[in-house]
Structure formats: C-alpha cells, structure tokens
C-alpha cells in the first residue's frame, strides 16, 4: 500500500509500477480539488503535505507492535493499560502529531481495552467514525458504514457472527461506543500455540480486526482478508 506513488505525478514509482495505466478520474478529481482549495487560500500546500506524510506513516502496524510488546513484557502492558497515550511513545507513536495537538479528529486520550477469558471488547462509533488512527491507521470502509455503526450497538453478537466470531454465552461482550474524546483499541488475548514466539512474530498475527474486536488472533491467521476481498467497485490500476 505504501509503495504506491504520490498523486503528484503518475507512473514514476520505481520498479513495480512502470506499466503505464490509465489515471483514474478520482486521482484527477482529488488533485483538482486540492489545488483549488490551496489557490483559494483554504490551506497551504505545506499544511497538506504535513497531513499527507502523517497519513502515510500510520497503519495497524502501530497497534500490532503495542499488543505484541504487551504480550511479552508485563510491565509494558501495565503502563499501556494505565496510560495508553503515554505508552505509545515507547513504540514511536506520538498522538500529538502532526500538528502538536493531534489532528482535528484524533484526540489525545487513548485507552487500551484488555480482553480476558470472561470479557470481549469491541469498538464502534455510532455518531460518525471515530477511530484510533494513530495506532490503527485509516478505518476500513465497513467501519464507517451506517450498517456496522447502527447494528454493532444493537445486535453486536449477530454482527460478530458475520465476521466469523462466535463468543460463548458466559463471555461478556462489551461494546465501546466512542462518541466523545476517548479513542479505544482492543488488546486481544495471546493465543495458544505462540509460546516462544518473538515480538515480531507475534505482531504479525495482531491484525487490525483483532484490535477492533471483530476477530481473534490465531497462530495461522496473519491477515484480515476474507476471501480475497473484492475491490468494491472501481478499477484498480
């Protein structure tokens, strides 16, 4: 994903993208709107660059690192649960970036929700699409749809079942609706069969969905991809 080239020019990425492909209308539209906005003085090119660089740097790898580290280092785990925002600094994630006070939609109050044998957490934002972007990157499309947002609070077990997750009756399912300033991430339980794994190996199975709470990590599960996820509409280059 991050190996793609910038929208400024096309086809220049080294190596794998030298095959000239049709430029999409959305690539053109995005650039046209951005240029007009800059010309009209709504923001500067520098402002945009700053946010774009930040957006390129974030992704679920941040959260995976946090969880894997917590699994192998009980003291770090305690610090992470006590003050998520602060503990993030230990793995190089600064919630104050890129502006010095966070972004307009990412507040700086980050909390990690620990799953236990008797408690399973899942996150949703019913009002809009609040998401812990500094640790998980951009939210998946489904997370932002009214379909997920409405039903996850009302019929959470059914929605989880659609993701292939069936929880026993004696496990409390706790839905966290992030409607205000707090941002949440789920810390799943370390699965059996990972004894002796390195932090790096562990991080590979802590996928985005396991930190949203719609999936559980497993030794052989390294991707959230369900059935070669389709590119919903849209021609890919």
């Amino acid at each position, binding site marked *: 994903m991050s190996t793609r080239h910038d*929208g400024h020019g096309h086809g220049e990425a080294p190596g794998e993208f030298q095959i000239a492909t049709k430029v999409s209308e959305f690539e053109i*539209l*995005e650039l046209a709107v951005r240029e007009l906005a800059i010309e009209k003085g709504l923001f500067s090119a520098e402002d945009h660059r700053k946010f774009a660089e930040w957006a390129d740097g974030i992704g679920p790898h941040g959260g995976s690192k946090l969880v894997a580290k917590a699994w192998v280092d009980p003291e770090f785990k305690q610090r992470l649960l006590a003050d998520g925002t602060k503990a993030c600094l230990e793995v190089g994630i600064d919630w104050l970036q890129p502006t010095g006070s966070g972004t*307009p939609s990412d507040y700086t109050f980050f909390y990690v929700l620990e799953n236990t044998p008797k408690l399973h957490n899942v996150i949703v934002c019913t009002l*809009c699409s609040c998401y812990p972007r500094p640790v998980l990157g951009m939210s*998946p499309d489904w997370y932002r749809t009214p379909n997920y947002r409405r039903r996850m609070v009302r019929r959470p077990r059914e929605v989880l079942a659609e993701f292939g997750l069936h929880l026993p009756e004696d496990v409390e399912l706790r839905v966290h609706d992030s409607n205000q300033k707090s941002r949440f991430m789920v810390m799943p339980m370390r699965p059996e069969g990972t004894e002796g794994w390195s932090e790096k190996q562990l991080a590979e199975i802590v996928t985005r969905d396991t930190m949203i709470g719609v999936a559980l990590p497993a030794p052989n599960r390294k991707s959230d991809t369900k059935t070669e996820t389709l590119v919903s509409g849209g021609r890919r280059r």
Partner: protein
Amino acid sequence: MSAAPTTYDVLMDTLSDIGERTDAGMGCLEHEPAVWESRMQATCEALSSHGVLDNLERRLAEDRLGESVYARFPVQTRSTLVVTHLLMDQKVFTEEELRKRIEVVRDRFAEE
C-alpha cells in the same frame, strides 16, 4: 437538510470511471486504499484544522449524501465527492471552475 440536495454533473460523471458500488454485506466492504484516498484524507484534515469544514460536519454529510445522491458510488469515494460537493455548495469554487481545473490536471498527466 430538508430541501433536496443539489447535484453536480461534474461529480456524477465520475461514476462511469469508478464503477457502481458492488458491495452487499459488510464482509465485502474492504479494499486496499489508493493513494488519492489518503491524499483526500489529508485534505479533509487540512480543511478541518483551518475551520473550513469540520470533520464531524463532513462525516454527517457523507452519511447523508453518501446514502442518497451518491448511493451508487463505492464507499471509498464518499469523502472526495462530498467534500467537493460541500465546497461547491459553499461557493468556494464553481462547477465550471472545477471542470476547467480537472482538464488542466488531466492534460498534465497526459504530458508526463
């Protein structure tokens, strides 16, 4: 909000390029984000941080317009369509200005 929203041909025309929304359930709603999507998010943040278009207002508009005027478009196009739509509603630029700029950008791509 009660009046029917304006439609802009310049935006509706992009449907033939991106293709109709094909997802039915949530499991299908997943794709690898393209660079323009991430650049658009940066635009959204820049607009919100300068008080031009608050992120929450934008998100609510994405829900509103995304499920009506742009219901046929894939979900990942919503931010681009809706931000552009709102900026034209706010008369930041006109549809004509946008069309011209699109041609300029298109020509630039063609030259490279």
